[in-house]
């Protein structure tokens, strides 16, 4: 590396971008889908009926249900429905083992009737959300890997900015239908256009997992992570059970009091510790959608037996507010429909930036081998991974949605099989990409993706009673929006497949000449 600073940075950008590009593409695409996590879940569980919100009533229903089903549980969780997520969900834990996760029993209730909802078992949008930071790996490896990918993304962004010093001038140059040049212009344009979003989303993902990946700071200052979290969130330390039974008061008035404390803010969740004990504590947790700056500690705590307010969390300090705004901006819980779509589009632009980068890397190096027609192993490997990570992922997502409608509702391990079909389909696209030559591979996979996505609204019409004709008339925008977005996505994939098929125009002369020669031979 004897060249200048910018060349060195361009080199770094190229290579870190390549090595993590495929993983980052998948993280960005599934993360983008997560902005519509609740809407996807709604489509995937059409049995769950949305009702007009009546949280006081829903809360009373949940309490009655839990009193009957789990009076001796160690802890109850009640998550209230909101405008995007129609279900009322309750969860309980029979025993709390410190240092252990899990042992939760979760039920979904009808928000007005209070009875259990019999919906098909499905992870819904939660699958994409979980995948984009856990990568289907056991805790904590997936989180580590995705955070490493985020660090690489951060490096790629900054080195990319250094490489393109004429960044704003370049932005106004787009040379369409010029092959490699157009891809690079496109890469720069989406990169610069949504640069603030890229920087925000990347840095915030590092901040979200900072206590996982930078534990040395905590250990040096506190000695252990538990001590740190106890200092950070005092509301999570609750009074222990005394073993004297006492009836739990109605949760409704506590809900009202918490909202009064927040000046009309919304409640997301209630956690009841030791219900039925004289030392029962009720933590009312504020909804993240209330403000951009997320506050994990925004809690009003009550004594469940006497109803008195035990603790109201204080205002965040500035560093906590900064880290909270990173979290809030990344999650976008506060975003209304318009802003949510903007998030979605920015996410797609990020995905496109990564995808075009991968295509450029290969395209540049393929040109050198166009004359001989023989591709070295490493370029072929990149080609296979490009195809499977982009068009293959689209097929996998399509397969996930199809599996949701085609697997019988009562099928055992149904939700698992939906996830399995996602990975099986993805695996098959790798095989297919290995067997087919470059362009054929692209065209066939994009076409199959197009078929799957265009088929989604039809499949929905055939298997449920909530097809576009019904959902549009009823104003069920989540359902209709899902169908229409899939349709749009399918049309886009069909266009891409068509473009790939007719790309001959943008090919180097040598290959075109060879194609002509072959044609001549046939004649």
């Amino acid at each position: 590396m004897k060249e200048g600073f910018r060349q060195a940075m361009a080199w770094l950008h190229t290579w870190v971008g390549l090595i993590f590009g495929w993983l980052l593409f998948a993280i960005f695409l599934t993360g983008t889908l997560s902005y519509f996590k609740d809407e996807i879940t709604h489509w995937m569980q059409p049995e769950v009926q949305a009702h007009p919100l009546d949280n006081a009533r829903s809360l009373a229903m949940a309490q009655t249900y839990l009193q009957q089903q789990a009076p001796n549980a160690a802890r109850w969780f009640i998550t209230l429905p909101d405008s995007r997520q129609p279900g009322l969900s309750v969860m309980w834990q029979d025993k709390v083992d410190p240092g252990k996760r899990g042992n939760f029993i979760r039920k979904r209730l009808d928000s007005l009737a209070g009875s259990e909802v019999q919906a098909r078992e499905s992870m819904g949008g939660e699958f994409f959300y979980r995948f984009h930071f856990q990568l289907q790996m056991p805790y904590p490896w997936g989180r580590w890997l995705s955070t490493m990918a985020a660090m690489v993304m951060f490096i790629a962004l900054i080195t990319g900015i250094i490489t393109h010093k004429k960044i704003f001038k370049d932005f106004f140059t787009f040379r369409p239908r010029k092959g490699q040049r157009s891809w690079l212009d496109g890469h720069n344009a989406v990169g610069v256009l949504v640069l603030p979003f890229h920087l925000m989303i990347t840095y915030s993902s590092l901040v979200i997992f900072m206590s996982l990946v930078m534990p040395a700071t905590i250990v040096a200052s506190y000695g252990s992570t538990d001590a740190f979290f106890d200092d950070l969130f005092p509301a999570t330390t609750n009074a222990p059970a005394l073993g004297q039974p006492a009836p739990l008061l109605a949760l409704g008035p506590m809900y009202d009091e918490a909202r009064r404390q927040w000046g009309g803010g919304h409640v997301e969740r209630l956690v009841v510790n030791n219900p039925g004990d004289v030392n029962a504590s009720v933590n009312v947790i504020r909804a993240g959608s209330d403000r951009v700056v997320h506050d994990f500690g925004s809690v009003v705590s009550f004594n469940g037996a006497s109803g008195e307010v035990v603790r109201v969390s204080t205002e965040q300090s500035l560093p906590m507010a900064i880290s909270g705004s990173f979290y809030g901006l990344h999650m976008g819980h506060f975003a209304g429909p318009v802003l949510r779509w903007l998030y979605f589009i920015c996410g797609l632009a990020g995905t496109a930036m990564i995808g075009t980068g991968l295509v450029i890397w290969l395209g540049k190096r393929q040109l050198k081998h166009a004359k001989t027609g023989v591709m070295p192993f490493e370029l072929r490997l990149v080609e296979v991974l490009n195809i499977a990570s982009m068009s293959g992922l689209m097929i996998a997502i399509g397969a996930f949605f199809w599996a949701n409608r085609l697997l019988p509702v009562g099928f055992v391990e149904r939700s698992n099989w939906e996830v399995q079909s996602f990975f099986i389909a993805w695996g098959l696209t790798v095989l297919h990409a290995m067997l087919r030559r470059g362009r054929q591979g692209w065209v066939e996979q994009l076409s199959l993706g197009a078929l799957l996505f265009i088929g989604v609204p039809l499949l929905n019409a055939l298997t449920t009673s909530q097809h576009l004709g019904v959902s549009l008339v009823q104003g069920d925008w989540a359902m209709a929006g899902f169908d229409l977005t899939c349709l749009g996505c399918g049309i886009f994939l069909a266009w891409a497949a068509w473009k790939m098929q007719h790309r001959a125009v943008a090919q180097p002369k040598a290959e075109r000449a060879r194609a002509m020669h072959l044609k001549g031979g046939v004649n």
Partner: protein
Amino acid sequence: MKSKASLPVSYRLAVTSRALAAVFGGYLLASLTSICMAFWLPISRADAVVSAMMSSFVFYLLAVIWCFACRSAWRAWFGILVPSAVLATLAGVSHWMVQP
């Protein structure tokens, strides 16, 4: 970059060495900077730790850029390990002063 076949082994070793310095050395430097910030920032302990962790990734980034921008792989290691040693000593002293 030149085509791969023409690259000598020494060049490849140097790139590997830089990459190792960037990934592991950079992480070490970022952690140590973060530890020192958490000790020295004149705000409450929880706030100092949060601020230090939040900014650690910028130091990581700078370390990585240094590793690939400097003139040789030896310099890359030198530029990572010397500041790390200094920060580790200072962090040790700070820790010892708080808890003798």
